[in-house]
């Protein structure tokens, strides 16, 4: 297939075959015996926008369903279901799996997303993946609250009734919450929270006025805590939509800041409003902001809290202590300065709080070797971060005897095993 390069020049690249593209990942996994290590990827994606026809029929409201399905008709329908973000994730085709995606062949009779998922998981040595959407990460920007509710409902039904059951037990998810409507979000937890392959729920954080401490959400958090579900906040960029980023003239800038900013903001509000005191048994994960922001925010909040405790009266310890009670996904890990990274890992108690994530197939994905090869980590920390911590959190069993042995060795074998 030809890709467009400079000055209209065309460059022929082989059609996409994920197994072949990731053959070096398989070599890495083999060289490090990673098949003996339970590896859980807490943040991987599919392109649910390629499957609108599968999940839109699950929308409950007749009128809204007809409205969205009408946009899918061939021959001139003009409509957009999702809020589209401005951006160049494919780097002008340099990350070839974006433009070549449609060229990848899959077998008939099995779900394409599942087949593609298993290909990259097998290449990397990943045993379980938490599957997240891509386009739906912007659902919080939808101007119609009722449409956000309907689309989340349809996507979650499709995911739990069709996609996850066909994945051979290797995919799970934290389902998309319609956070603009707290009552509807609660209904999602009550309806889907006990379903198989559901580990928790995810708040898409690309939103305006997201007040995680609002009284309206307390029933929601309580319902999740009672069910031993995990709450996660998945960050994202919002280059065109967030006024402050309009001064960024490069995607790099908006992406670097945007993916970090939303979690900095929401984590601050979560901690300062004493959510850790209100829901001490609710596990919280901050997803896809990298790690460098964590020590920054710990220091910043501790400094302010020392001088202004009257504004955070629910806190019984330092903000950084509450941050150390929560979990963080690893990708995109800023591997530039090992000394800085080591400090970050120490400050966040990475051995027990960090969860490996690939973010595959997105452009800045991380392989398991990014954790395994860190020179300052103990063997226990490597096993914990790659999968042991997530195995405890989501009660995931080992997939072979060596993994079981390793999970036992480091205290991560769960009741599910």
């Amino acid at each position: 297939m030809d890709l467009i390069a400079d000055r209209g020049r065309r460059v022929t690249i082989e059609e996409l075959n994920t197994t072949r593209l990731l053959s070096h990942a398989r070599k890495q996994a083999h060289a490090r015996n990673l098949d003996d290590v339970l590896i859980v990827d807490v943040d991987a994606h599919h392109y649910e926008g390629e499957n609108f026809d599968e999940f839109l029929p699950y929308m409950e409201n007749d009128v809204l369903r007809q409205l969205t399905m009408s946009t899918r008709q061939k021959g001139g329908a003009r409509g957009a279901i999702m809020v589209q973000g401005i951006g160049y994730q494919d780097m002008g085709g340099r990350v070839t799996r974006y433009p070549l995606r449609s060229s990848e062949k899959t077998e008939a009779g099995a779900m394409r997303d599942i087949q593609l998922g298993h290909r990259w998981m097998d290449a990397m040595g990943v045993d379980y993946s938490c599957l997240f959407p891509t386009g739906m990460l912007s659902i919080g920007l939808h101007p119609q609250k009722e449409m956000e509710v309907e689309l989340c409902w349809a996507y979650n039904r499709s995911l739990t009734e069709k996609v996850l059951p066909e994945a051979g037990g290797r995919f799970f998810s934290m389902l998309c919450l319609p956070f603009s409507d707290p009552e509807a979000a609660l209904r999602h937890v009550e309806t889907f929270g006990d379903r198989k392959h559901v580990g928790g729920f995810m708040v898409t954080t690309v939103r305006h006025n997201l007040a995680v401490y609002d009284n309206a959400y307390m029933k929601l958090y309580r319902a999740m805590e009672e069910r031993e579900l995990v709450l996660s906040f998945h960050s994202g960029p919002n280059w065109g939509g967030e006024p402050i980023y309009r001064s960024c003239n490069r995607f790099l800038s908006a992406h670097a800041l945007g993916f970090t900013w939303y979690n900095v903001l929401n984590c601050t509000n979560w901690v300062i409003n004493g959510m850790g005191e209100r829901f001490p048994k609710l596990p919280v994960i901050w997803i896809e902001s990298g790690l460098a922001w964590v020590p920054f925010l710990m220091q910043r909040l501790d400094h302010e809290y020392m001088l202004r405790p009257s504004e955070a009266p629910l806190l019984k310890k330092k903000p950084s202590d509450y941050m150390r009670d929560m979990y963080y996904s690893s990708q995109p890990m800023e591997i530039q300065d090992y000394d800085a990274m080591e400090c970050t890992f120490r400050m966040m108690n990475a051995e027990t709080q960090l969860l490996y994530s690939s973010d595959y197939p997105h452009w800045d994905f991380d392989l398991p070797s990014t954790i395994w090869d860190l020179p300052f980590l103990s063997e226990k920390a490597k096993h914990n971060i790659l999968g042991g911590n997530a195995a405890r959190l989501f009660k995931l069993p080992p997939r072979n005897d060596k993994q079981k042995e390793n999970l036992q060795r480091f205290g991560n074998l769960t009741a599910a095993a």
Partner: protein
Amino acid sequence: MAEKFVAKSSEFKDGDRRIVFVGDNEIGVFRHGGEFYAYSNFCLHQGGPACEGLTIAGVEERLRPDKTSMGLFFSESEMHFVCPWHGMEYDMKTGECVSNRRMKLKKYKVVQKGDDVYVVA
């Protein structure tokens, strides 16, 4: 060091590339501007297939004497090849990583014998 056959020169057009396997090693061979260049196919970032992606001219920002920007342009002289995993870019002529010139892919010698092209590895 052994010579590994890459291709017939007459069948290896300008702008083409070949990947050759020497035991467990993989080497990418490019033909660009009439010259052959050969590098390790293992990206220095996370080990991706560095030589199997797009080739594309480097991007430069040109400044006027008063330091105002004229905008972005494709280079007239510098060609890059790009690792398809994450977009890490390498200079075709040197194998240097464009974002950190101290990082370099291992370079291999290419020899031509008649119409046959070999890489020395």
